[in-house]
C-alpha cells in the first residue's frame, strides 16, 4: 500500500513536470505583456495608453502618425484639403476597405463615428461615455458629400485637429458592429486594422488574428496576444521565463540586467511626455518668480533621471517635450546650481520658505513618484526650503490637484503625455484654464503674452509658424518657471531576440503590423 502510494506520487510528478511545462510562446504568434487589462476595446471609450496599444492594431483612423514621428500621414483617408479659413476639412476616403465584420467603410461610417461621440441625441450615444471626445469639441458638423468624401466643419480654426484624428480617439469603428452589440461593442470590437479581434478572456488575454485582406498589406504574424500582468515583478518573471515575447514599461531597476542579456533586446524611444511639479503662483513663497527659479536651480535633475530613473528619462527644459522635434527650441534646462538658488532666495528676501508638496503614490506616466518626491524634497531642503510632503493615492491626488492648489499646497507632482504641443500648455498654462473655468492650471500661472501665443498657435494652420510660436512659449515659460521642470520620459520595451522589426513610436502607440517572429 505504502509503496503503491509512493509510486503514484512519482508518476503524478512525472506527468506534471516531465512534459516540458516551460513557458514557450507559440511560433508566429506574438505575446505582449501589458501592464493592465484593457477597460474596453471601443477606442472612443478609453483613455489609457495601455488600451491604445491594443486598439491601434485593430483599427485605423482617417490619418495616422508617420513611422517614428508625430507628423500626420494618410490612412483611411487618401488625401484631404483644408479651406483657407481653416474651418473646413474635406477628406477623400480610401475605397474598397471593409470592416472586419464585412460591412463597408465609407463616408456614412465616418459620420456615424463622430456623431456617436459628439451628439447627445445620437441613437448610439448611450454606448459611451466618451471621455476624450473633447479632442473634437471644435467639430460642428460632419457632412457626407458622397460615398467616399466626407467634410468636417469646425466652429473655429483648430490646428491640432489632424493630429487629434491620428490619436486613438480618432480611430474608426464599424457602425454595423455598434448597432449589433450596443453597449457591449467594447467587448465585440470591429475595425479595419491589420489584426482582427478574436477573443477576450477576462484578465487573461486579448487575442487578435491576422487580417489577410488588410488594405496596407497583411501582417506577417499569424496572431497577437495581449496578456495583462499587473504586478511588475510577475511581468519581469514572465519575460525571463519566456511566457511573453515583448514587455512594455520595464521598471528602471530591471533595465540593466535585461540589457546585459544576449537573448533579449531593449528598445527605447523618447515620447511627448513631461514630468514636472506645479508651483502655486498665486499664494505662498512660489508667488515670487525668483523663488520658483530658485527651486529649479536647487533640484538636481541629472541625478533624478540618471539615478532614480536609471536613464529612462532626460532632463526637461520647459513645457514642450523635445519629442515634438519640429518645434525648434534653444532653451537649455536649468542647471543644478544650489549657490545660485540660495542667492535667488536671498534676493527674494525669503528665509527658509515653508512648502507643502503633494506627492502621488502612482499614476499614469508618473514614473517613480514617491522616490522622485523624496529626492526633490532633499534638494530643496539643501538650499533652505522647508518642505513637508503629503502623499495621496492617484485617484485622490488627481481630485485634490485638479481643483487647484490654493489654500492647500505650494507644489504638486504631475505628468502629461500628449500628441500635439498645443494640448498641455493650452490646458495647464493659460490664464483662462484655471480650475474654476474647468482647466488644469492648478498653479494659477498667468502671462498674457503666453495666452496670446497659445491662442495663435492653436488657430494657425501653418506648421512653420506654429513651430515658432511654441518655441517662444517654451522660452517664456522656462523663464517664468511656473513649474519645476523635471523630466521627459524615454519609454522602453524588452523583446526576445527572435522578435524582429519591433519599434516603439514617439506617440507611445504600439504598431505590430511589421513585426516578425
Amino acid at each position, binding site marked *: 500500500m505504502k509503496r503503491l502510494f509512493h509510486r503514484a506520487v512519482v508518476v503524478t510528478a512525472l506527468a506534471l513536470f516531465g512534459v*516540458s511545462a516551460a513557458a514557450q510562446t507559440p511560433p508566429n504568434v506574438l505575446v505582449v505583456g501589458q501592464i493592465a487589462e484593457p477597460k474596453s476595446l471601443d477606442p472612443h471609450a478609453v483613455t489609457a495608453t495601455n488600451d491604445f496599444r491594443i486598439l491601434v492594431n485593430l483599427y485605423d483612423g482617417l490619418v495616422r502618425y508617420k513611422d517614428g514621428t508625430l507628423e500626420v500621414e494618410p490612412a483611411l483617408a487618401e488625401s484631404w484639403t483644408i479651406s483657407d479659413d481653416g474651418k473646413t476639412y474635406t477628406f477623400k476616403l480610401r475605397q474598397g476597405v471593409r470592416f472586419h465584420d464585412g460591412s463597408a467603410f465609407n463616408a456614412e461610417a465616418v459620420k456615424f463615428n463622430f456623431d456617436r461621440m459628439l451628439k447627445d441625441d445620437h441613437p448610439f450615444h448611450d454606448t459611451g461615455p466618451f471621455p476624450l471626445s473633447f479632442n473634437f469639441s471644435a467639430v460642428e458638423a460632419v457632412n457626407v458629400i458622397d460615398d467616399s468624401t466626407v467634410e468636417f466643419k469646425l466652429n473655429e480654426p483648430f490646428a491640432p485637429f489632424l493630429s487629434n484624428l491620428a490619436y486613438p480617439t480618432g480611430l474608426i469603428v464599424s457602425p454595423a458592429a455598434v448597432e449589433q452589440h450596443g453597449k457591449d461593442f467594447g467587448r465585440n470590437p470591429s475595425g479595419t486594422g491589420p489584426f482582427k479581434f478574436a477573443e477576450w478572456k477576462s484578465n487573461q488575454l486579448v487575442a487578435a488574428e491576422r487580417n489577410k485582406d488588410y488594405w496596407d498589406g497583411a501582417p506577417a504574424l499569424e496572431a497577437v496576444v495581449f496578456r495583462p500582468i499587473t504586478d511588475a515583478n510577475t511581468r519581469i518573471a514572465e519575460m525571463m521565463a519566456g511566457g511573453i515575447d515583448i514587455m512594455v514599461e520595464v521598471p528602471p531597476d530591471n533595465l540593466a540586467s535585461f540589457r546585459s542579456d544576449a537573448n533579449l533586446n531593449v528598445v527605447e524611444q523618447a515620447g511627448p511626455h513631461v514630468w514636472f511639479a506645479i508651483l502655486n503662483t498665486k499664494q505662498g513663497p512660489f508667488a515670487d518668480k525668483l523663488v520658483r527659479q530658485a527651486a529649479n536651480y536647487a533640484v538636481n535633475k541629472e541625478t533624478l533621471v540618471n539615478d532614480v530613473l536609471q536613464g529612462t528619462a532626460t532632463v526637461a527644459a520647459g513645457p514642450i517635450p523635445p519629442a515634438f522635434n519640429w518645434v525648434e527650441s534653444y532653451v537649455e534646462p536649468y542647471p543644478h546650481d544650489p549657490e545660485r538658488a540660495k542667492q535667488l532666495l536671498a534676493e527674494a528676501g525669503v528665509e527658509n520658505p515653508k512648502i507643502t508638496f503633494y506627492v502621488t503614490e502612482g499614476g499614469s506616466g508618473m514614473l517613480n513618484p514617491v522616490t522622485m518626491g523624496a529626492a526633490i524634497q532633499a534638494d530643496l531642503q539643501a538650499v533652505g526650503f522647508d518642505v513637508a510632503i503629503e502623499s495621496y493615492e492617484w485617484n485622490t491626488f488627481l481630485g485634490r490637484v485638479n481643483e487647484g492648489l490654493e489654500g492647500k499646497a505650494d507644489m504638486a507632482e504631475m505628468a502629461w503625455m500628449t500628441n500635439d504641443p498645443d494640448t498641455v500648455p493650452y490646458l495647464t498654462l493659460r490664464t483662462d484654464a484655471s480650475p474654476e473655468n474647468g482647466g488644469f492650471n492648478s498653479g494659477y500661472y498667468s502671462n498674457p503674452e503666453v495666452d496670446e501665443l497659445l491662442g495663435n498657435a492653436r488657430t494657425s494652420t501653418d506648421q512653420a509658424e506654429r513651430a515658432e510660436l511654441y518655441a517662444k512659449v517654451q522660452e517664456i515659460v522656462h523663464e517664468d518657471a511656473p513649474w519645476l521642470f523635471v523630466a521627459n520620459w524615454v519609454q522602453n520595451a524588452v523583446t526576445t531576440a527572435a522578435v524582429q522589426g519591433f519599434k516603439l513610436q514617439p506617440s507611445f502607440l504600439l504598431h505590430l503590423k511589421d513585426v516578425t517572429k
Partner: protein
Amino acid sequence: MPAYVAKRLLSVFPVLFGLSVVVFLVMSMIPGDPATAILGAYATPENVERINRDLGLDKPLVQQYFIWIGNVLQGDFGRSFALNRPVLDEVLERFQATLVLAGVSLILCSVIGLLAGVVSAVRQFGWADKLITFAVLAGISMPSFWLGLILILLFAVKWRLLPASGMYAIYGGGDLKDLLLHLILPAATLAVVAAGVIARLTRAAMLEVLRQDFVRTARAKGVPERQVIYRHAFRAALVSVIPVIGIQAGFVLGGAVYIETVFQWPGIGAMLVNAISTRDILLVQGGVLVVAASYVLFNLAADILQTMLDPRIRA
C-alpha cells in the same frame, strides 16, 4: 437539521444587506470618484459632470442606493463603469477562477495541516514534531506575496518547470492538466499560512484528546494504535478543528486578493483590487456580496459538518 440549515441560510440575507450598505457608504466616502478614474488627467469639472450624468452618479446617494438595491432584487446588478460590462457577467466569470484556486488550496491546506498536526501530536517532542513545528512557524510568519515571488523565481524562471502566471496556457492549453500546472504555485502559496494554522490547532486538539479516558480505554482493550489514533482520537479532535477550517476558508478567500495579483490569476480578488482603485462601486458591491455570501456558506458548511461529527451539538 433542515430547519437549522434553513434558519442559517435565511440569516445570510440581513448580513448581505448590511454589508451592501456599508460598502456603498465606504465607497462613496473615500476620496476620488469613477469619473476621475475614467478621465485620469483629463478630469475637468465639466468632463466629470458629463460622465457623472452618463453614469447616473449625479443623483443623491440615497436614491442611487435604492435604485441599485431595487435592481439587484430583480437580478440586475448593473454595469461596471470601468469595464462597461454587466457586473454579474464579470463577477461570475471571475468568481469561478477564485473558487478553483481557493477550493484547491483549502483542500491542500486541510490535508497538509491535519496530517502534520496529527503526526506532530503523536510524535510529541520527537524530531518529526520539531521539524513540523518549525515549518509551521516559518509558514505562518512568511508574507505570502513574497513566498509567491520566490516560488515563481525558482520554479518558473530558474528551473522552468511551471508557468509563472495565469490560469491557462495561451495556446494549446485549456485542459485539466494545463489548469493543474498553473494552479500548483498559487494554490501552494495560498495554502501555506492556513496549513500552518490548521496544523497547530490539530496538534493541540490531538494532544488533548490523546490524554482522555476513552483513548486509554481503547488502548487497554487492545485496539491497534493506528486505529486508536485515526478512528478514535482524530475523529474527536476533528470536531474542534472543523470550525477553524471554516474560518480559514475566509482567510483563503481574502488571501486570494493579493495572491491573484502576484500570479495574475483571473479571479475575483484581483478584480476587487482593480475595481476599488477605479472606484467602480457597482463592481465592488457585486464582488463583495459574492465573496461574503460564499464566506457565510463555507462557515455554515463547517458548522453542519461539525454537527454531524459531534452528536452533542445537535441536541
